[in-house]
């Protein structure tokens, strides 16, 4: 069965007849493929844009805890948004995987994971749930400068890979879910954008500092929640009072 003809093993065997592929076909094919790629890229981008939603006019909602906060986002129709979270606490502890029912044997059952995660929402995982349920597509944290500095110090000691060379920000990569951790809103956020201000921010930060950070971008947020962090025992009443003050500042800014 073997064919023992010898020839260069890396070339067409045997020498091909003249003609072959032909320039006309090659050019048309190349153009067609490139066009398909461009259309796919444009289509994917357009699909992404059309899949985002949030309230049409800026809305301020003051909530007491993370569960109310998540409910407020969903009620406002937030989907595929950039979440800017001014906070001390990252709220990104993954909900326990053992929440997923593990049946043995066949048939394997599908699980409505978003419903499962929403049901498990608490202060420790509210942002994680927002990412895993499609509510937030990207997260930008704004931390008080001292909090960021301390987190980076600890992160460096643990060789955390996403710390910027200048030690001024962190690119957090949770298996492809990306978050930007900074002490300022370094880049303009694309729409729709949701702003959450957590009372824990004001344990070390002040409303004046945060107002200065947000500046004119405040009006670009479709939904703004101020979470009084009643579910956090380590957030003092003074910080909640500052959160209330921040809510009044925002209200006035939006009314202008």
């Amino acid at each position, binding site marked *: *069965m*073997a*064919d023992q*003809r*010898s020839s260069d*093993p*890396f*070339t*067409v*065997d*045997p020498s*091909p*007849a003249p*003609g*072959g*592929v*032909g*320039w006309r*076909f*090659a*050019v048309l*094919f*190349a153009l067609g*493929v*490139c066009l*398909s*790629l461009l259309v*796919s*890229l444009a289509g*994917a*981008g357009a*699909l*992404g*844009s059309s*899949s985002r939603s949030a309230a049409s006019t800026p809305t301020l909602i003051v909530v007491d805890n993370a569960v109310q906060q998540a409910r407020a986002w969903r009620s406002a129709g937030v*989907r*595929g948004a950039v979440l800017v979270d001014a906070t001390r606490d990252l709220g990104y502890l993954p909900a326990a995987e053992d929440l*997923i029912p*593990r*049946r*043995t*044997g*066949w*048939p*394997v*059952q*599908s*699980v409505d*994971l*978003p419903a499962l995660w929403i049901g498990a929402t608490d202060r420790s995982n509210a942002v994680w749930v927002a990412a*895993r*349920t*499609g509510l937030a*597509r*990207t997260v930008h944290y704004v931390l008080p400068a001292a909090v960021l500095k301390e987190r980076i110090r600890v992160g460096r000691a643990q060789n955390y*890979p996403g710390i910027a060379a200048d030690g001024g920000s962190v690119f957090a*990569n949770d*298996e*492809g879910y990306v978050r930007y951790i900074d002490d300022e809103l370094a880049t303009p956020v*694309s729409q729709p954008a949701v702003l959450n201000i957590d009372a824990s921010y004001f344990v070390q930060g002040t409303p004046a500092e945060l107002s200065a950070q947000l500046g004119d971008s405040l009006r670009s947020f479709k939904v703004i929640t101020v979470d009084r962090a009643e579910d956090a025992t380590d957030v003092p009443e003074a910080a909640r009072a500052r959160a209330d003050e921040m809510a009044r500042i925002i209200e006035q800014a939006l009314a202008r």
Partner: protein
Amino acid sequence: MKMMPTRKFLYMLVAIVAVGAILRLGWIGSQAPTGDDVMVAVTATNYVANGQPNPTEPFHPVLRNLLVYASMMVFGGSPLGVKGFSLLLGTLLVGVTGLFVRRAARDERAGLFAAGLVALDIVQIDYSRQAIQEVHTAFFAMVGAWLVVEALRAEDTRSWRWLLPLAGVSYGLGVASKFYALSTLVLSIGLLLASSWKRRKYDEVLLTGAALVPLPFTVYLLTYVPWFRRGYGIAEWVTFQRATMSAMTTHTKAPVAYLAYNKAAMWFLQPFYGYADVATTAAGQMQLSVAVGNPLVWLAVVPATLYAVIVPGQRRRDAILLAYFATAYLPLVLSSRPIWMLSSVAVFPFAAGVLGSVAAALTRRASRRVVWAYVAVVIATSLLLYPLAIGRALRFPYLQPIVARMGDYVNAQGAAQ
């Protein structure tokens, strides 16, 4: 050698594929789903419905989620629903390996030997019976390689008009299954460009470039449509790709028990280098699968490769087989992250190509009786090892030494029952 195989080759290849199908489907209904099987099904639904490629392996490409979702639409949460594409592609991989090796070595017997080795291989059978995408990657990469070799061996390069686009689509699906299909894609591009350039056929250069770069990329991109429905744009997709690659290249597990078998360089050197999967039946019975190569085959890969490299006539005949094997294998050997046995699924068919070609060549020499005796022993030992691949490793005392090598993990699972 003509493009069309002989009738004798086809009949024999179909028979080998049928054996492969039987081994892959045997007792499939009574093999309980592993944790991965369950979570792959959950992930498939979550990806298609919500664009979320989690909880299982969110850092790998996403085609598996689409395939598993599609088969579950037809067969529900049954073994065929969850593992349907693995069973199908794992079976077809047997035939495609035969076709690839036949053309690469210009020897139909070599193709049949290689197909037989893949059909009988315990690791191939094991992962063809699991929902994870190892065998998907192997199949699509092998189809791409086969079509490219068909093009290189074509009597008229007019056939490149359909061979290369199909290869491009297949490679796109391969890379959309796991990134390591990229290595053989790069080799295929190099071989085709070298061939065209040498003959100054620049129209073929253009076709090669278009069919094997933007076309696979487009296929890969389209598998992310559910992900884009979460609101992302192209720039964010690029960031996501970089982040997933970073997560993938740093992925690790504590090297305890069988997880310490994490060096690709040892696959063909150390007997019973393996990976274990535990499942529990509805009645609470533990089932253990152990993916280990038949040492009579896996330990023969290095000598066969050396023979193919050293003996001039064999080297010339097996040049393409050696190139594909090296390209598929060496990146994993050189990888700094742990590489477990499951990644060998996409490498072994190329190794089987080299081994099959050397065996076929030896059958034409004085050693033919030895070769046929070797084939008989390989068949017999593969059947003896078969319970390892179908979750029956604990049922047969003679397999206990292999089970024991999997170590504390299995004991811990057993204690938890």
